[in-house]
């Protein structure tokens, strides 16, 4: 009868929409904190280079081309997991600067020697305070920075899957082809 059918449809519809909300929720990961630094200027720093501690590098030294800042450490297992992909990105012509986070120079150099060095250079953040300025909380983290020193994207976690690589490449492409912040083309 018509009346009884309606009685079932309403709870079913409510249940269905509830399940839909939960399904969307499963795909979200709130532990991945969205960075407030995206689309803002890279934080200022002056850090020693791992291979040449007398030399200091600031963000101004890296302007002019899109580059990646990869936060890593020799004690970080996930960094080892994404290492191969960083080598691939390097071979594709990307500039990756390593931010050696809360590490010992000796261990860091040994790690690079053993596994290979995907970095243009590594700069040393021994006490992690520059990391705090970048909102680093769970390495490895990778920032995509455009030619003007604006942070375009932040990638939290190791770059392992095909989807991760796709996303990073898309971010790099966007950073290369979007000249101004907020430009219409996307």
């Amino acid at each position, binding site marked *: 009868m018509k009346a009884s059918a309606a009685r079932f449809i309403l709870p079913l519809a409510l249940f269905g929409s509830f399940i839909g909300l939960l399904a969307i929720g499963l795909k979200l990961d*709130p*532990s991945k*904190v*969205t*960075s*407030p*630094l995206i689309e803002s200027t890279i934080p200022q720093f002056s850090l020693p280079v791992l291979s040449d501690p007398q030399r200091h590098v600031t963000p101004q030294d890296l302007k002019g081309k899109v580059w990646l800042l990869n936060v890593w450490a020799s004690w970080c297992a996930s960094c080892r997991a994404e290492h191969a992909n960083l080598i691939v990105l390097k071979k594709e012509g990307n500039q990756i600067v390593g931010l050696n986070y*809360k590490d010992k120079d000796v261990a860091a150099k040994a790690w690079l020697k053993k596994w290979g060095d995907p970095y243009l250079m590594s700069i040393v953040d021994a*006490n*992690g*305070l520059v*990391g*705090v*300025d*970048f*909102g680093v*909380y*769970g390495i490895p983290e990778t920032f995509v920075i455009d030619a003007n020193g604006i942070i375009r994207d932040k990638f939290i976690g190791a770059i392992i899957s095909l989807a991760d690589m796709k996303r990073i490449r898309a971010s790099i492409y966007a950073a290369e082809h979007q000249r101004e912040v907020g430009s219409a083309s996307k």
Partner: protein
Amino acid sequence: MRPNIKERLAVQVNKLLLIMLIIICLPMIGFAQAPPEFSDPQQEVRYWQLLTELRCLVCQNQTLADSGADLAGDLRQETLRLVREGATDEQIIDYMTARYGDFILYSPPFKAKTLLLWLGPLLGLFVVATFIVLKNRRRFLANEQIEPLTKYERNLLDKHLLTD
């Protein structure tokens, strides 16, 4: 009766295990950190208060006051530095949210974005209550006449009640 050999042995083994457990745990004393010293007691109060308001991003359901994570230690140090330098609570919160976003606040802020989060349960309660009231309004308003039992029903009732 005197406990037998097996039981006496078990007691001694347990004592030994307990002592070993305590000895193994002793190095943890090295990890204990003395709380920071303050010349200004108001600063001290503010420091500890702020630590309960900021989230540890590694152990995300703990505050900076609770968490033993490395990053929590770094952020506690930063908070301490800022308090000692004379920054206001608002400035310190701004410092943290500028770097980590709103998520670093342990209680989500009351903003337009989080309005649904804060009011959602209340709203849900309101919707359900309305539904219940509307569905049953006939029953709430009507003065239902309770008809007395007919003789047949009375007899049936008595029969069942008495022959239980």
